[in-house]
Every structure is written in structure tokens, then in C-alpha cells.
């Protein structure tokens, strides 16, 4: 029996402390979060509002013309519940001229461009608001590489990256994120009818358990099959983890000198603070 249940009070203590400490020691007291209407960004927003105070958080909604009204409404529900500052900056005018140059542009390209346009808006607003961009990527999507490099994965720090999607839902409910947001099918809302689970081909409930065995418990793929997971499913997930590792590390630097950033020039970001 694989149980991913977490102690939500302890998780809040650690994550709120993390956000407060790591933002203030970098010299900031404010933060910016892109609110999609989904559970991940809602939870990040709840956590950082608790860490810094609602008045010090800017939530940014960035709809494209095809974004669903539900997404906008759910993001607004989070803003209203927390009393954080907010902005709505549609990205249609930013991305549409580029899309129009390539009439045959596919969904993946469009999705990546939208994710990166949102990153540009968030980082620009972070300059205006004098706050750090708080990430929203969870452990499941980081491991599967279900994210746009330099897009939705871009952030100054990430409180959710060691929580599986099912744990994000548990913590979100415990913190009072509206149930409609927690229970709805996860979607990047990059095109109509898109859902994460439809696109990935499996459910978060299934894959989180498999990832827990593979990553946290260091099961071999064969052990996972013996534990009852389908062989093709295990192979697919193992391959996704490996093939997407480039999204989890900084670009490798070609070593030439005796001391090279990333190899033998090693400091934490908190160096000196």
C-alpha cells in the first residue's frame, strides 16, 4: 500500500518558513505569482501570502483569448479569498502576431510560446513590484518534464517542487484553497479541452505512486512491475524522467580552465546571507 499522505501542518511550517527566509535574505519582502486558476499556483499563492502577508503578494492573471472563463474565475476566487494585490494582463496581443506569421503552427509550439510570454510578463512585473517570482511546479511535473523550459518552470524559488500532485491537492485543501479548484481536472489550458491527464496518457494518482517507488524508494523498474504497475507504463515513465532531465539542470558549461562554474566553483545561492 503506497501512501503519499503528508502531515499538512508540518508541510506548511516548513514551506512558509522557506519562502519567508529565502525571499527576505535575498533582500526582498514581496513576491509575484502567476495565477492560472489551477491548484498549483493557487497553493503557491496561499503559501506566499502566509509567508509575507497578502499586501506583499502580487497575483497576475495572464489569459489568452482561448483561455477558459473558469480559469479566470478560479484565479479571481483565490485573489478574493486572500486579498492579495492583483493584475490581469492578457497575453493575446503579445503572442498573436507571432502565431499569425506561421499559419500551420502546432499546439506544442503555441503552448510553449504562451508559457514563455507569461514568464516575460511575470519577470517584468516582478521588477515593477520589487518582488521575487514564486514558482508553481510540482514534483510530478518536474520529474516527468511536463513543463516548458524557460516558461512556466522559470522562477526565483519554488515551494512545491518536492510535493507530488496528489500531495499538492492534499495541502491545498488543508490550507483552504476552494474545493472547485482542487477537484477540477488539471489543465495547462493552452488549448480548448486540454487536460494534463489526457495529454500524459495516465492519471496523477497512478503516476505519483509509481514515481514515489522509483524516485523516493529507489525501486528498480523491475521492482515496480513486480509491485503491480504495467510494464509499458513503467517503461514510459522511466524514459520520460531520463529524457527530460535537461529541464532540471543548468545548461552544461564546456570545461576549459581549472575552475569552472558548476563543476568546481561551488556556492549556495545563500552565500554570505
Amino acid at each position, binding site marked *: 500500500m503506497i501512501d503519499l*499522505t503528508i502531515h499538512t501542518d508540518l508541510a506548511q511550517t*516548513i514551506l512558509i518558513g522557506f519562502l519567508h*527566509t529565502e525571499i527576505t535574505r535575498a533582500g526582498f519582502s514581496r513576491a509575484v505569482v502567476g495565477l492560472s486558476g489551477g491548484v498549483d499556483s493557487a497553493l503557491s499563492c496561499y503559501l506566499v501570502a502566509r509567508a509575507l502577508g497578502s499586501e506583499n503578494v502580487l497575483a497576475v492573471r495572464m489569459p489568452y483569448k482561448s483561455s477558459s472563463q473558469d480559469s479566470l474565475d478560479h484565479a479571481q476566487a483565490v485573489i478574493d479569498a486572500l486579498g492579495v494585490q492583483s493584475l490581469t494582463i492578457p497575453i493575446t496581443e503579445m503572442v498573436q502576431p507571432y502565431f499569425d506569421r506561421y499559419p500551420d503552427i502546432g499546439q506544442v509550439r503555441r503552448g510553449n510560446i504562451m508559457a514563455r510570454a507569461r514568464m516575460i510578463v511575470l519577470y517584468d512585473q516582478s521588477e515593477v513590484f520589487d518582488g521575487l517570482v514564486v514558482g508553481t511546479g510540482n514534483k510530478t511535473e518536474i520529474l516527468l518534464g511536463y513543463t516548458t523550459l524557460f516558461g512556466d518552470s522559470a522562477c526565483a524559488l519554488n515551494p512545491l517542487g518536492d510535493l507530488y500532485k496528489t500531495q499538492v491537492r492534499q495541502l491545498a485543501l488543508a490550507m483552504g484553497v476552494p474545493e472547485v479548484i482542487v477537484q477540477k481536472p488539471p489543465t495547462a489550458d493552452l488549448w480548448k479541452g486540454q487536460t494534463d491527464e489526457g495529454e500524459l496518457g495516465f492519471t496523477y494518482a497512478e503516476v505519483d505512486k509509481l514515481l514515489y517507488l522509483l524516485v523516493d524508494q529507489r525501486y528498480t523498474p523491475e521492482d515496480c512491475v513486480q509491485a503491480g504497475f504495467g510494464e509499458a507504463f513503467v517503461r514510459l515513465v522511466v524514459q520520460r524522467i531520463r529524457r527530460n532531465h535537461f529541464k532540471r539542470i543548468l545548461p552544461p558549461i564546456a570545461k576549459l580552465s581549472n575552475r569552472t562554474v558548476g563543476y568546481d566553483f*561551488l556556492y*549556495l545561492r*545563500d*552565500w*554570505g546571507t
Partner: protein
Amino acid sequence: MKLTLALAQINTRLGDVQANLEKHLALAKEAQASGADLLIFPELSLTGYVLQDITSTVARHPTPDEPIFHSLLEASQGLDMVVGFVDEDRRHRFYISSAYLSRGEVLHVHHKVYLPTYGLFDEGRFFAWGDSVQAFDTRFGRAGILICEDFWHASPPYLLWLDGADLFLFTSASPGRGLRTEPQLESARWVELVNSAYASLFTSFVVHVNRVGYEDGLNFWGGSTVFDPDGELLARGPAYQEALTLAEIDMNQLHRTRARLPLLRDERTALVLREMQRIVGNS
């Protein structure tokens, strides 16, 4: 004899020895004003934990002419102190270290003998391995110092016990990990469990001081503890908050516990040595 311990469960600034020193001196004053006899700081309390390439720049040798230790030794006129630092020896090797300071003198320096270099840890890359586990005499009795991973292994506490330590002073900068359904992380539960076990097995006082705060994504949980020779919890610092936790211990408890439970008297060291020689000799 009764004495009051002060467990300085602090956060540190990474690589800023001067700022950390000031916190040590402020707490020494506060602890002394509260009537403490012995003030214990966590592992690497003067430097921060994930030092990596900072290591060589924050290393100090604990002598009275070294400015940082000069101030600490002065403070030790008021109460005894255990401080965590990076020791640079005469041959320029760097050790994770804790020094026991008393009445202006360095009574003992322990170099960490087990450097975790697995999982999230990379100590063996940056530090030299200590090579000695020794108890030492203090004005309160015989004591021993171990640093974090040292007491994840059973042998260093056992050696201190045989070397006469009745007061075990353990320090940590232990990154919290293992979030499950319990209200404590797995790593915190494990440490508390073994410390209670050491106190029971060695019928001794076991003090553990762990830091708090964050370094990048790592959290340090605090939860410093004192266990008595019966394995009973005497004091516990809060989780995730800086605190100066005071605990009075009665060294006469050793007499009472060991009269009831003579584990030390009956410990068969000659047998242990003989079997160790056989085991090591055969391997």
C-alpha cells in the same frame, strides 16, 4: 551537583563569521544572566553549514591570538561554551569541529570523524576526516563531544562512554527530510530516538543541540533535547524557531541510575576488544 545547560538553537549566516560571532556573544550574555553554566551551540555555528567553496575562507584555529576565539574565550570566563567552527590545522587541513571553552581556555577540540558524503551530503569533498574520539574533563565532570553523523554511528558514543564521559554533548546542523504523516520529519524522529537510546544504554546525560533556519532549499528543524540517564526527556527546544532552552541536570542522577542499573560496571570491554580483534583480523 546540579548544573544548568543552555541549548543555543540558532540560525546562522552562511559564511559570515563576524555576524555569527556577535550572535554567540549576545547569547552568552543572555545565558549567563539566566544562570546557565554551560552553553552549547550547534554544528558549524560560527560559519553556517553548506559551506562548499567558502570552507577555506572561514576556517580558524582556536587559539587566544585568533580574534574570533579571543572574544569567545573572554566570554567563556562567564560560562563554559561549546562552539562549532571550521578548524584549519597547521598542515592546512579543514575539519568540521566543536571546541569546549572554559574560563579562558580551550579544553578540547573534536574533529568530526564521520563525514556524510551521500544523498544530499557532500562533506567528504570539502573536509578532512577527524581521527580521534576522546572524552575530556570539565569542571562539571567528564564529557564528550560528537558532531551529527558521528552519532548516527554507534561506535563513537560507545567509545566516549568507555573513555569516561557521563555528559554527552552532541551538536548538529541536520537538514530535515522525510515528510510523512507524522508531525515530525523522519530525520528528526530518528535523531530523537537514538539520543534517547544512547542515554538509556549508557546511563548518561545526552544533550543534542541542532540549528534552525534554511540554506537554499534545506531546512534545519531545531528540536534540541536533553535526555537523562534513564532515557527520560528533560527538555526540548521548539521546532523551526531560534531558542535558548535551559535545562537543569542533576549529576547525582548518575549515582541513582547506575545503582539500579549497573550497565557500565558490567560492560565487558576486554571481551569487546578480543572480539573486535578477531573480527577485524579475519576481515
